[in-house]
């Protein structure tokens, strides 16, 4: 009886064993890494805003404190977006006639808020509260990065759950003193290992089992 398959079929068959493993493993590796790329997380992607607003200018050059605009950050879940009135505190005098601030002035006249584009958007099933973080020693730059260097705003973190948990599992690594909370260029001091634990005690931060309990963030 003639052969059904050519001789090369043997090699092909042997190769297929390795190939299946490689393809399956490679696919898994790809998916796991792909989900962490900035393409998926949108980290480091600058977001266009209706007004040509630069954090770099306001925070970096002018040295305005974060809380001047984001007023409710110490008291409520939301950090708060400034109303047009806050802008007009200065801009009724400064750059009062420049064309690119016409949108702000229009909003001021009409009372219709400016439609800012949200940059840090957590899913709605996670109950994030700014005030607890700020009051317990987590500084702005820990999550938002060097805002004083950003002309347009972007995410510096993935905002994925594993990122949340990386702190909730070891909060002492990022804790700082209250006076440093809005400090943009804060870096962990060399004795953070000791200092962080002291601060955790001082802030009365709960155990990691409480911090990583499901209902802490998903209620």
């Amino acid at each position: 009886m003639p052969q059904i398959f050519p001789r090369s079929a043997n090699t092909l068959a042997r190769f297929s064993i390795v190939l299946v493993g490689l393809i399956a493993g490679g696919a898994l590796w790809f998916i796991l890494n792909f989900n962490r790329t900035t393409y998926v997380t949108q980290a480091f992607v600058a977001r266009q805003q209706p007004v040509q607003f630069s954090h770099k200018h306001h925070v970096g050059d002018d040295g305005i404190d974060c809380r001047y605009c984001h007023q409710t950050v110490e008291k409520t879940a939301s950090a708060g977006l400034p109303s047009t009135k806050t802008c007009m505190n200065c801009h009724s005098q400064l750059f009062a006639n420049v064309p690119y601030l016409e949108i702000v002035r229009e909003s001021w006249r009409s009372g219709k808020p400016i439609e800012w584009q949200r940059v840090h958007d957590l899913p709605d099933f996670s109950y994030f509260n700014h005030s607890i973080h700020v009051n317990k020693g987590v500084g702005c730059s820990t999550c938002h990065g060097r805002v004083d260097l950003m002309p347009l705003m972007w995410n510096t973190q993935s905002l994925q759950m594993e990122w949340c948990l990386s702190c909730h599992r070891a909060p002492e690594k990022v804790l700082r003193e209250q006076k440093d909370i809005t400090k943009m260029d804060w870096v962990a001091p060399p004795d953070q290992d000791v200092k962080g634990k002291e601060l955790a005690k001082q802030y009365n931060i709960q155990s990691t089992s409480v911090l990583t309990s499901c209902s802490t963030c998903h209620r």
Partner: protein
Amino acid sequence: MADKIENNGYVDPRPPVIGPGYTFETLTSKIADVVLMRRFQKGWIFGFGIAFLLALVLFNTIAYLVLKGVGIWGNSVPVGWAFDIINFVWWIGIGHAGTLISAILLLLRQSWRNSINRFAEAMTLFAVACAGLFPALHTGRPWVDYWLFPYPNTMGMWPNFRSPLMWDVFAVSTYATVSAIFWFIGLIPDFGTMRDTAKQPWQRAIFGILSMGWRGDAKHWHRYESAYLLLAGLSTPLVLSVHSIVSFDFSVGIIPGWHATIFPPYFVAGAVYAGFAMVLTIGIPVRKFYNLEDFITIRHIRNMCKVMLATGLIVGYGYLMELFFAWYSGNTYEQFMMKNRMFGPYGYMYWLLILCNILVPQLLWVKKYRDNLLVVFVVSMFINVGMWLERFVIIVMSLHRDFLPSSWRMYSPSLFDFSMFFGTIGLFLTLMFLFLRFVPIIPMFEMKVMLPQAKVEEGDEAAQKEKGTLGGAVPQFGD
């Protein structure tokens, strides 16, 4: 086996496991022709058509379910688990006969298993496929079902390894994988035969790929036997572990009616019981339709009846023990649960269960009935229904009235509960019909071992007989 006994001057009173008058060639053609013939029999088309229609009902239900969510089912607080889990456990249980036949009976060298093992293993695979649908869909968001598996996800979370539901994922997926591999490896020598018997080039190519270069030489047989035995060894604990873990889904919970130590053995016995009932339910018509009376003989039917009788009694013992535990525990809730089970609003289900699972199968004690195919078929139908009722009794009846009377509520299934359930029966039968048509349903090479022609003889006589036949090189195995 029969030969050896005859040699000692003793005639085995049992009917043979294979009909008389077959040679290697006639046996091959009898089984292989079903697959290789070009036309489709009218009966097959009719049966397949009906089964496929039912399967379409399933597919449509699933589509609607994914679109609308599990709210289309009757499940509602406090009965959060209902048809979905009942059907899951029912299907998983049915699969167990296949593994028991293929693994445990192989290790115990029961030669009668040879003709029904492939068919029963296929049943296992298809039943597991049907079973797997239910937990996968009842999560409500089946598109993220991969969360069930432990992998380094972006949530920074692992599944809860202390939960029996997690063990279930592993138990069932292992079971499906091992069963599939076992089934396929067992098919390889037969695919080789099919490749050599086939006339059409495309048939040869397909069977050639499936047989993976099988030439039937001694080295191949040696490796095949080792692999098959190893897999049998791997599958054997699965017969016990899979349904034990399924039972943990309940017994680890603290609901009265679930929290019982008897659950694992009682579930395993029930699974084998249900599985053999399904083998007979499918096997009796198939045997008739394809004229396989010489391969699936009355001896097979009898043996399976005996297995059902034995496992059925274990299940009966389980029911008795549940009663005893409720009384002996002195626990009000347990006692109420049993009373509610027997005389509560769903009491009729319990008594139906006793009728189907305990009373009717006792007919099988009578030899006359074990030999009567109609009786056996009807009894196995009763068991199929009974085992479904058992899961209803355990799952729904334990949930609908728990500790707090204020949270009691009756359960009523919706139309989609039924269309899902009967739909999976359709899917199962569809796959079964495809299997019957496209795969040799009886392991030819294992049957050949049992033919008189395969008996090893001294000298030239043996050489002459074995010449030019594929089955001649088969080692004595399973005899």
